[in-house]
């Protein structure tokens, strides 16, 4: 076969490599096996406090609408079915099926036992230092179906 060459620029494709969910899951599984459950949450807190610092700042300044905009984009990028309900004091996100979990299930990747912490711990860390808090009301490990709630802390 003759030599083949392809050239691509960044604008030729959409940036959406869902296998990355599987790589993150392997990382969480590795942390849990080698360093224990709390290390998974420690790591995710460290990541969230660093990477989502601008989002935490926006949450403090603009309120829950900042989070609603963030999650609308995240789930739209991954073509997920979600229902987002927003009021001044509460943001509720009902996820029909988590795109990360579904991709891993469909492609035979192991879903880490603590994968739900990518939602629970990360959401809690995003809210640190703001008037808001987060809770994961339910999460189905088989599909990632679940409900996230952000709410104004009581004084």
């Amino acid at each position: 076969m003759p030599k083949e060459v392809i050239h691509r620029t960044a604008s030729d494709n959409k940036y959406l490599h869902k296998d990355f969910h599987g790589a993150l899951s392997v990382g969480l599984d590795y942390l849990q096996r080698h360093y224990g459950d709390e290390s998974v949450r420690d790591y995710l807190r460290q990541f969230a406090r660093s990477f989502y610092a601008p989002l935490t700042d926006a949450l403090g300044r603009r309120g829950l609408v900042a989070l609603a905009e963030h999650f609308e984009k995240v789930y739209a990028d991954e073509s997920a079915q979600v229902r987002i309900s927003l009021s001044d004091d509460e943001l509720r996100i009902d996820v029909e099926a988590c795109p990360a979990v579904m991709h891993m299930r469909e492609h035979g990747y192991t879903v880490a036992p603590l994968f739900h912490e990518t939602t629970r711990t990360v959401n809690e860390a995003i809210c640190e230092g703001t008037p808001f808090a987060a809770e994961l009301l339910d999460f189905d490990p088989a599909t990632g179906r679940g409900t996230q709630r952000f709410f104004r802390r009581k004084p």
Partner: protein
Amino acid sequence: MISCTEFIPAYSELFKYLEAKGDIEAVDDFWNYLSDEFLGNLRDLVLQHGLRGCWLYWNHTLNEEAADFTMSIDDEAGEFRIDMHYCPSMGRLMSTKHIVPYHDYCRHCDVLYRRVLEPLGFDAVSDRTECHRAKCSFVVRPKK
């Protein structure tokens, strides 16, 4: 959920977390584990198609990662080559000004892929001298 578009900063932070837990060896141990556990698709493609398995694997991943690259395969000469003009991963880390990338981020590619390819009879050589500009190259040839 952490979006797959936010994975690279999460990955970089994981390397930092592991190094703080142990040392660079702790990071290398994880990379070896990740290679063994996660790159079965590359291994299977190269087992089935030889050098062309590399072409099939990276043709999928680099397009989904929206990389700026040139990729070539010369079956007669026995060479597969990637010239990464702008790595989407390192590029993202560099452009996200409020985070500090793991200091040895780019080495993970070399560790992960060599670990798959060398036992299958290939030499894999990366040039990371321009990693700080999100540029690198990766060449795979059958061992002589």
